[in-house]
């Protein structure tokens, strides 16, 4: 189990009577790039939010580096409403807030870019370094942490150099073109020094050229930072190109998993995307 960087075990997320994620099991091993795909509304982003602590799952567990970080079971109102499986298997509640989970070493980007808009490119990355500070309020205010501050700035510049944003470091983050904003968001996530990077539709709204560049970029990040990556994506070219393994979700349920070649030829996956099988069965 300790080889898994991330392991999601029997996670179910239910909102009222709607089961958004149904009994999801997922593993990400060290150094892998794993993709989570599925049609619109399949529950991919919800799964992401469960992993990163935005939502506590209704039932199930999440392990990170072998340690259980999130656990929940249906209680309160949900006790009656719960429609999923594995009831009674989990008995304790662990609901860390997203910032705690990021501190453990998981960093994410967002489907709709969420940069700090009034700040420069440099400051965006620098702000993400706040979490790894050792200074307290007093030492930071009275500049007793000069060495740390300088180190943070140097690391930020290094990071910007690696992602190719050094020349625009003093520009306002929102003045960047779309593709570069995506890059900046990834750089910002990297600044929190994660072991696992979660990318929520990094190629959304990108043209083919930008998508190719992004594919290369994600590959570069993996090799340079020895990063493990879990990503949600709709661009099949990108997914098939860089993924080591793929999980496919449909209506909250996992319908297939495997290496890209297997997924490409899986009939259930094709059915879920094109919606052919349903009519024939009726």
């Amino acid at each position, binding site marked *: 189990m300790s080889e898994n960087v991330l392991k999601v075990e029997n996670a179910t997320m239910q909102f009222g009577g709607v089961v958004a994620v149904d009994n999801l099991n997922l593993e990400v091993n060290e150094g892998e790039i794993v993709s989570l795909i599925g049609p619109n509304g399949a529950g991919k982003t919800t799964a992401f939010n469960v992993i*990163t602590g935005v939502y506590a799952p209704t039932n199930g567990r999440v392990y990170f580096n072998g340690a259980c970080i999130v656990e929940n079971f249906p209680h309160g109102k949900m006790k009656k409403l719960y429609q999923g499986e594995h009831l009674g298997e989990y008995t304790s509640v662990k609901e860390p*807030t*997203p*910032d705690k989970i*990021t*501190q453990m070493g998981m*960093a*994410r980007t*967002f489907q709709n870019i*969420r*940069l*700090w*808009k*009034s*700040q420069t490119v440099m*400051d965006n990355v*620098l*702000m*993400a*370094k*706040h*979490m*790894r*500070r050792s*200074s307290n*309020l007093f030492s*930071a*205010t*009275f*500049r007793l*942490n000069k060495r740390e*501050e300088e180190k*943070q700035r140097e690391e930020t510049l290094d990071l910007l150099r690696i992602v190719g944003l050094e020349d625009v470091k003093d520009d306002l983050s929102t003045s960047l073109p779309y593709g570069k904003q995506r890059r900046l968001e990834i750089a*910002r*996530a990297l*600044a*929190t020094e994660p072991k696992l990077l979660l990318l929520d539709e990094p190629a959304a709204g990108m043209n083919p050229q930008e998508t190719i560049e992004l594919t290369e970029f994600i590959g570069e990040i993996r090799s340079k930072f020895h990063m493990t990556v879990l990503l949600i994506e709709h661009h099949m070219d990108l997914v098939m190109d860089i993924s080591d393994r793929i999980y496919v979700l449909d209506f909250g349920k996992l319908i297939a998993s495997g290496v890209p070649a297997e997924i490409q030829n899986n009939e259930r996956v094709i059915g879920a995307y094109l919606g052919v099988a349903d009519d024939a069965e009726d």
Partner: protein
Amino acid sequence: MLQKKTKNICTAAALVLLAVVIVCVGQFTSSTSMLRTVLQLGAIYALLAVSMNLCNGFTGLFSLGQAGFMTLGAYTYAILTIPVESRAGVYYLYGVAGWLEKLELPIPVALLVAGLVAALFAFLIGLPVLRLKSDYLAIATLGFAEVVRIVTASSPLNRVTNGSLGLTMIPGFSSYYGIFAVVILCIAIIVLLINSTYGRAFKAIRDDEIAAEAMGINLSQHKQMSFVISSFFAAIGGALMAMYMGAISSTTFTIAVTYFILLIVVIGGMGSVTGSVISALLVIASREWWLRFLDQPMFIGSFKVPLLKTGFRMVVFSVILMVVVLLFRKGIMGEREFNWDGIYSFFKRLFSKKKSGKGVQAK
């Protein structure tokens, strides 16, 4: 772009100029001069505005509790510093509580205690209230301020706060420079904080809370921090106000005071310290001084100018505020700080415009 050295010289020159103005006013004007009033009151309001800006402009917490924390600060300061020999006179109606009778602290200690008391209250109030967002937070803090104001005037506290009679004989700094020293020190600390890594975290929360949390910034802890520090300095501002006025009562710091400070912050620009300072001085100067003539009847020859009578000043003042807000949607400074590059490019543009204007005329 100017060189860094030039900029530093300019900043030093500006600071020296400011010091010279304060000293000149202190040396060459009488103690009742309008210039003195404006500078001192302006300085106090600058501190109050900057402290409010820390919470509202830099962290994005729309808090309206300023008057409450000022009341706490002012009362704490007053209770701790009224000279022992004049206590009996101040508390002539209800008498003074036993533990207070012999208690008199030096001014700097009392200022610090005033800030700490307000900070403690802010911490306790912040625990439940800071879970709220935007308007709801505003309403909750507004309610808190009102509760503080009413409780200070309530009868169980008569022997401590002197009930609705308020406190008088509040001592101030013997020197005219005292207030400026405190204000400059406090604002300097706030500026240092804003430019530190914690200040960056505050701005991250303001710009996008969800992203800030996802990047590992503990929201509740940082909001609490900003709220408590802001209240600490608001209380010191309140104490300075008590010092300046010499007498306070529960009606001194009403909701209107909070709105007045909010107005200074908005006009200066949410998220700009220099904006708040400049705007505090301008607003106080125009309210207290420049518009005074509107309150007196004026004659041009034998013609009496209509409308000019006591109170008309405030009408004009309000109209000016509306015009300013319409023209500068984000305040005078917006989110930017004062910098010499901005001034330089402004004059450059002005100059080149004149030049091109002349060029056209020559043709």
